[in-house]
């Protein structure tokens, strides 16, 4: 059985079922509240959710059971008496040493060494000398991608929209950017090489070959084979190079999955057909995977964090949700798809809990 955490505009839904079939909704938490992200910490088994109350601001919450009591995490805030406030937490990621990382708006990183009960702002990134030049994307100045390195807890890659890729090899004490090779459609050709206006939409590492990363960009899909220092365009063969969600098969370093949207001016699935595109050759070619997905007059919007996986290899399960409230899943690595749930509120994130 697979347990899915589906974070929505109106609460967190826990779904349980078998890959490739309809799931049952087994719990709803934070009723009425926007839940941006939820995950289960593989080290502790506890559940974490980021919730941004329109009234009371962003918080991280923890629970042993997603249908039970949630407790508020401490320290999820910017320095007091400054000129900025935390707007939102976009992602929570577990590192190989049990450390948890959380990324949010305005381009901030938090770390927790106690399973998410308390958090500390990463000061070197917060105080980075280039920060005054950072510009937000349409969704804000969002740190949405945190990419640990298996077995090397101090190596991390970050994606910040609309700033770029940031890399550390010392656990976040120092940061350098890694945007070489990214071609931005909204910058002039003669923009300085050190420009930091790159609208990263999503980024994932291939766990079986950690120096390889894949990126969905705002107008481009890229691969890096040098740990995020430089990037090669791999969007040829896709119906659009625009989109937000991305996933990889942990067992196959040549694999990536994207869900293209028509364009930044028309953020729906192209031609009214819902299709996931898969590469198994590191982006040299892409294959549409749509068997079982809506194929006519289906104009879905799939948001950045709304694409999750469970398992790997032949047992890879893929799940994505749309702002329409539909959730789809595949129990056979994307070969066939089925409806997992429908009529949910707009889906913000989908993650498998186990």
């Amino acid at each position, binding site marked *: 059985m697979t347990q899915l955490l589906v974070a929505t505009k109106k609460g967190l839904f826990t779904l349980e079922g078998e890959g490739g079939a309809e799931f049952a909704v087994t719990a709803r938490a934070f009723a009425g509240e926007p839940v941006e992200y939820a995950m289960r910490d593989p080290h502790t088994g506890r559940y974490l959710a980021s919730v941004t109350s*329109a*009234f*009371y*601001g962003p918080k991280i919450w923890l629970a042993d059971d997603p249908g039970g009591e949630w407790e508020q995490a401490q320290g*999820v805030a910017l*320095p007091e008496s*400054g*000129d*900025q*406030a935390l707007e939102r937490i976009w992602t929570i990621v577990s590192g190989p040493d049990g450390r948890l990382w959380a990324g949010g708006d305005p381009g901030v990183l938090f770390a927790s060494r106690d399973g998410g009960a308390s958090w500390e702002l990463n000061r070197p990134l917060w105080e980075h000398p280039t920060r005054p030049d950072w510009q937000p994307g349409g969704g804000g100045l969002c740190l949405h991608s945190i990419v640990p390195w298996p077995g090397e807890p101090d190596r991390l890659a970050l994606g910040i929209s609309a700033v770029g890729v940031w890399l550390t090899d010392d656990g976040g004490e120092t940061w350098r950017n890694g945007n070489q090779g990214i071609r931005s459609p909204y910058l002039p050709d003669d923009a300085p090489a050190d420009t930091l206006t790159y609208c990263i939409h999503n980024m994932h590492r291939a766990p079986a070959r950690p120096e390889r990363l894949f990126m969905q960009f705002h107008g481009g899909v890229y691969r890096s084979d040098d740990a995020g220092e430089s990037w090669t365009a791999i969007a040829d063969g896709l119906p659009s190079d625009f989109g937000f969600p991305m996933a990889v098969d942990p067992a196959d370093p040549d694999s990536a999955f994207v869900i293209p949207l028509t364009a930044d001016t028309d953020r729906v699935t192209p031609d009214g057909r819902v299709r996931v595109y898969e590469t198994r050759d590191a982006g040299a070619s892409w294959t549409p995977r749509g068997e079982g997905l809506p194929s006519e007059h289906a104009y879905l919007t799939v948001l950045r964090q709304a694409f999750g996986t469970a398992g790997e290899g032949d047992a890879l399960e893929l799940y994505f949700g749309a702002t329409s409230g539909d959730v789809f899943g595949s129990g056979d690595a994307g070969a066939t798809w089925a409806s997992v749930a429908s009529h949910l509120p707009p889906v913000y994130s989908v993650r498998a809990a186990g």
Partner: protein
Amino acid sequence: MATVTLRGPLKQLAGGSDHPVDGGTIGELLRELERAHPALGGWILDERGLIRRHINVFVNGELAAAETAVGDGDRVDVLPAISGGSR
């Protein structure tokens, strides 16, 4: 000393609805309220010390701001604003 009335989750976090609090202005009073009830930290005031955008504070029934003066016997209500319910 004014009496601050909380509702909903704020009431739960503070362990009750009515709280006598000292402060010359609403801003001072809310900071003092947070000091007395640390669980309220970040819920009414953000990191900048500003009243959150969709929280309204009233003094004796009149909408107030952080700099609004308060005095002995004043009644202060902290309420979610209707503007925050649109999402």
